[in-house]
């Protein structure tokens, strides 16, 4: 079932790699960085040594999805990962990145959910993900599931686990597919907890 337009109830759960892209995109917009340079920076931030380069308008699509969502949710772990870059362009521009993140959170009302380690351990389903993928991914999946959000992530293992729990998950490359996603996806019940 294709839909005409992005629904008013669109909710996004955002992974750290994608939040980094959004923070950098926002920074580039505010700093009037030319579009071609913006695309190069975003490709570098996305990593993969440029072997999986995205067309520059794919980042524009991602921004539109973010801008027009009604809820944008991350976890404290995701925020911490994004704001503590370890290498590359993000590390070299850590201060403007943090300023941009602050502005992004304030301007677009990004919700930051907590997901304590102990809560993850208490749920057998979350515990499995915690062991397999780590606390950031386990927490994000738990939050995405609880608010019936669509997950955007460039992490294949995370997406695969998300789908196995009934959470629709897309990489940045496939952002346009979000426009065709069923209007009211029926999400299955949480496997546990």
């Amino acid at each position, binding site marked *: 079932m294709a839909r005409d*337009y992005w629904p008013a109830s669109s909710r996004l759960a955002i992974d750290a790699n994608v939040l980094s892209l959004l923070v950098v995109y926002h920074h580039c917009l505010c700093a009037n960085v030319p579009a071609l340079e913006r695309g190069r920076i975003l490709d570098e931030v996305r990593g993969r040594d440029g072997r999986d380069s995205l067309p520059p308008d794919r980042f524009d699509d991602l921004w*539109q999805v973010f801008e027009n969502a009604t809820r944008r949710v991350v976890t404290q772990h995701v925020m911490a990962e994004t704001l503590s870059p370890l290498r590359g362009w993000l590390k070299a521009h850590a201060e403007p990145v943090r300023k941009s993140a602050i502005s992004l959170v304030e301007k677009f009302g990004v919700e930051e959910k907590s997901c304590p380690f102990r809560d993850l351990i208490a749920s057998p389903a979350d515990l499995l993900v915690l062991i397999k993928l780590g606390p950031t991914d386990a927490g994000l999946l738990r939050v995405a599931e609880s608010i019936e959000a669509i997950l955007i992530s460039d992490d294949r293992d995370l997406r695969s686990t998300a789908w196995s729990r009934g959470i629709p998950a897309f990489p940045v490359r496939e952002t346009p597919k979000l426009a065709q996603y069923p209007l009211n996806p029926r999400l299955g019940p949480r496997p546990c907890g």
Partner: protein
Amino acid sequence: MKTSPKNGRKKPLYGPNIVRAWFDTVFHYALRGLEHERNFLERRNWTYRFHLDALEYLAPLAEHLPGSARDNLEQFLSFFPAIRILIDEHNYGTARLARTCSEFHAALLASPRFDEVYASVEAEAPVKLDGEFRSHFGAFSTKDHFRGLLAEYLVNNIRENPGYYTTARLWKRYSEQFFSVLDEPGLASHRQAADACGHGLSEAVVKLAGRLKESRSDLSLKFDVPIAVEMTSAD
């Protein structure tokens, strides 16, 4: 070329280190930029932006390279002047297309027929689509911006926007009415001019990319420098 005193053979002025730098800082970005350009040109999306009065993603080749790599491009071209000619052709093509799109956009805004369609859509949309007309334009807030954006879609041959664009509903419903404006003889000629420029640029892109790939392959084999040194898995 220098002459080696030992065997009398000419030694190239550049070696594997410089070739590696050309691969990583010039060929990589140039070919990627040309590939993106080809994709836009195939869709006849000229990436014209009314608020910049410029093409956003079709640009002179050097602009596809990081600033720090442009000296390497100049160095490379000093040894391969034939490629400079192809780059000049490409750059001329982007400038010509940009000028044509700008004139096309201005002609649309000056067209009484465009105004007529705009006025009827502005009156009808709030009833048919249930909501304020301005709500379809996101951060844009003035009538000039609304008209500019819709005219931009016509210039760029945007038939439909993905659903997550604020204009998606409006454009889905009314794009055909707006596209009918282009049947006016005065506007049809602008559209044909843009198509012709786009086609010319497309040919220049293919020619330049092909020549760059040939040079890259020749240099790789001649200096035993691999085209790609690291591979990572990609989704």
